[in-house]
């Protein structure tokens, strides 16, 4: 939708074009007059003919030029560069020194991406873009004083890649005497192909590239997806539209879905807290004061939460079958306590999870259908010959499910190591697409927060998921009928009822129960 200003600009241009066309027509008319009014003098006629040719040629040239300009202008009429001014930094400060540029001319930029850092008085201020588009002009070099209210950069809005090619200037200036940034020094040239667009930021020698076409970028932006979290399967790792659609449908690539509780259960929370320390500290939620002036507060659903909405919606298409079982944890508690000093000497914090993960893998070897997925056409069951077991964890970014690769070939120590690494990476926001993708089975240790029975939702395309409740000391009967205390943990399983039946899950659970309740039997089957 063109703004009034854009319409007026376009109209002016068209008027100019028409006026020039009239001039051209004037030349043609004149030449015709010359022919008509030609005298019988051949020489005169010849000379006139000679004059007509150049005029005709000129006519053609002018017409061609105007056609091109019209086509270019029509293409770009709605996408004139926007002058992005330096925002007010308060207290009447009139100018700021430019410290760092995060972009260079020709770079693609999205709303909220970092543009630059400036210094005002005693504060450095990071300036972010308010527009999507291509940076077509950087108005100040590092060290310059930029005036508040005057342009910092010019951004050509998204969609006019051709214009960006016409208007892109030379690489941005890098003449700062200080080396606070090497960004511009290291920048590589933008792609010249219209098929894809390199989004290339270089910071201190490290390059970050996401290859994707503008339409894929637009789709990602509409769905608030960071392209860096998607593994592209195109040439050179390009993110294709199908990769993005798969991601949105939760088919493959990154797994960022949560395991919310769907049906009536005793637990109401959807997060799993994983603390690197053994004594788990529940997050303290500070009650925010209720503002009586407003009746409601609207918070946009974006980022990971938006992906969660989509993937959970996709999961509702799959019929879930639920199964819960009690697992006696006394023997495993004893074993873990025995192994804790050894783990600590190796710098590893040992929780129950490595044991449960390994036991799950051993049980999956006996019931491999639980480690499969259903083909999109629902005509095949795809058995995975590896166990990449996902572990739900609460991170500052939200609930994420990275997975431990090839659990079937890892020792309990190696699983504990990898779990530690994923937890630390999760806290630091450094989980990679590799960590997040390729999962075949998931576990959620919601019991660290609380709860007994759950009803977890499948992480498609997996066919089974387990939600682990808390360990409780409960009275049970022994073989002689005496009441004894036992550490009981409940795991609630959900299976894809299209391919998993109750008997399979029950049998799998029994095998797992055997391993958990008699951990020494794991030695028999561990490779």
């Amino acid at each position, binding site marked *: 939708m063109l703004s009034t200003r854009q319409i007026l600009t376009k109209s002016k241009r068209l008027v100019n074009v028409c006026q020039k066309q009239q001039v051209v027509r004037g030349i043609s008319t004149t030449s015709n007059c010359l022919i008509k009014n030609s005298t019988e003098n051949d020489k005169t006629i010849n000379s006139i003919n000679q004059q007509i040719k150049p005029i005709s040629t000129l006519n053609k040239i002018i017409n061609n030029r105007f056609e091109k300009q019209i086509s270019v202008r029509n293409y770009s009429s709605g996408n004139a560069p926007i002058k992005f001014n330096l*925002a007010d930094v308060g207290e009447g400060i009139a100018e700021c020194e430019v410290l760092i540029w995060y972009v260079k001319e020709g770079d693609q930029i999205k709303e909220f991406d970092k543009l630059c850092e400036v210094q005002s008085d005693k504060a450095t201020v990071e300036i972010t873009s308010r527009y999507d588009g291509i940076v077509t002009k950087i108005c100040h070099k590092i060290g310059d004083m930029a005036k508040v209210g005057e342009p910092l950069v010019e951004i050509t809005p998204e969609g006019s890649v051709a214009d960006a090619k016409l208007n892109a200037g030379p690489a941005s200036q890098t003449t700062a005497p200080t080396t606070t940034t090497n960004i511009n020094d290291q920048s590589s040239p933008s792609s010249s192909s219209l098929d894809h667009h390199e989004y290339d930021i270089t910071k201190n020698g490290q390059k970050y590239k996401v290859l994707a076409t503008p339409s894929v970028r637009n789709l990602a932006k509409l769905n608030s997806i960071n392209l860096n979290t998607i593994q592209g399967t195109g040439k050179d790792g390009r993110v294709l539209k199908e990769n993005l659609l798969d991601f949105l449908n939760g088919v493959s690539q990154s797994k960022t879905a949560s395991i919310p509780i769907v049906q009536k259960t005793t637990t109401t929370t959807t997060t799993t807290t994983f603390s690197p320390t053994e004594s788990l500290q529940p997050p303290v939620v500070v009650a925010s004061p209720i503002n009586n002036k407003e009746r409601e507060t609207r918070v946009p659903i974006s980022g990971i939460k938006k992906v969660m909405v989509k993937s959970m919606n996709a999961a509702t298409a799959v019929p879930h079958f639920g199964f819960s079982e009690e697992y006696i944890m006394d023997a495993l508690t004893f074993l873990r306590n025995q192994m804790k000093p050894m783990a600590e000497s190796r710098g590893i914090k040992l929780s129950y999870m490595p044991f449960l993960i390994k036991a799950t893998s051993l049980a999956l070897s006996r019931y491999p259908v639980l480690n499969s997925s259903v083909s999109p056409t629902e005509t095949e069951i795809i058995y995975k010959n590896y166990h990449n077991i996902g572990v739900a964890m609460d991170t500052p970014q939200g609930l994420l499910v990275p997975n431990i690769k090839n659990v079937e070939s890892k020792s309990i120590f190696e699983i504990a190591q990898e779990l530690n690494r994923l937890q630390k990476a999760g806290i630091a926001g450094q989980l990679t697409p590799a960590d997040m993708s390729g999962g075949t089975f998931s576990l959620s240790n919601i019991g660290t927060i609380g709860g007994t029975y759950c009803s977890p939702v499948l992480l498609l395309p997996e066919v089974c998921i387990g939600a682990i409740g808390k360990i409780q000391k409960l009275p049970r009967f022994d073989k002689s009928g005496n009441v004894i205390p036992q550490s009981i943990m409940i795991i609630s399983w959900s299976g894809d009822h299209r391919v998993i039946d109750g008997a399979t899950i029950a049998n799998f659970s029994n095998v797992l129960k055997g391993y958990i309740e008699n951990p020494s039997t794991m030695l028999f089957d561990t490779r």
Partner: protein
Amino acid sequence: MIRLLRLNKFPILKQLQIEEALYRAPNSGNWIIINNGTPEPIVIVGISGRADKLVNLDEVESRGIQTMKRFSGGGTVVADENTLFSSILLEFETLKQLFPTLSAISSSSSSSTLPSINDGNIYPKDIMNWSANSFYKHVFHEQIDFSLQENDYAFGKLKFGGNAQSFSKHKFLHHTSFLYDFKDDHMMACLKQPDKIPEYRRNRDHLSFLCKLKDRYQSKDHIINNLLKTINNLPTSPSIKEVTLEEAEQFLSNPHPKSNQLFDYNLKSWKDITNEYNPIKNI
């Protein structure tokens, strides 16, 4: 939740590397870092500081004192084991929850029609005022002449604490070096009179312009305790979680632009820091 990191004689160079990593990492949360001194004297200039204009480089070099440039703006200080460092990194959302009246004050003070630097319409000056009036005033409650003089904390007109700030879209960093004590000789010999000085300084030299906290407090521990009390008494009592250095160090591995630098006296230029926090030499 606010993470509290307490350090003792921790090198300020490494502390600033951690602070930059925390500041530049998205979703790093809220942090308060207190460091009781840095083991070796070091000259610290602000991000756009010209070393030759602010520092007597020959003097500093001959004394074996390093000169570094920090990622935040502001002035120059010679820090040593008697400098108390206090850094506050808060998300604007958290600040607004703790001090709901802040945004009301700041939006009324801003008469600009230009777009704001952040969602909250909170400007550096607002944070400076907030830090003095809502935070450090309580830390130094025994001193009736505590005041904010332009960007400095002072008793009367004598500065005892210098500040620097960094603002991004969702959070800000406000860090301070408090002069519990300093070597008069270092200050005078190492630092030049800067071109840009606050008005209230009125061309006083360093020794006439600064004062020492040790003249008013028996020990640094007393001040640190006041600081901890103030943190624990923040409005709405947010949860304060004391964390280890390792938890903060995790953020160093998040790729980010690194603006802290060291001055190379031989090359007479700034160079990137190469240490255990930044083992890869930047090209």
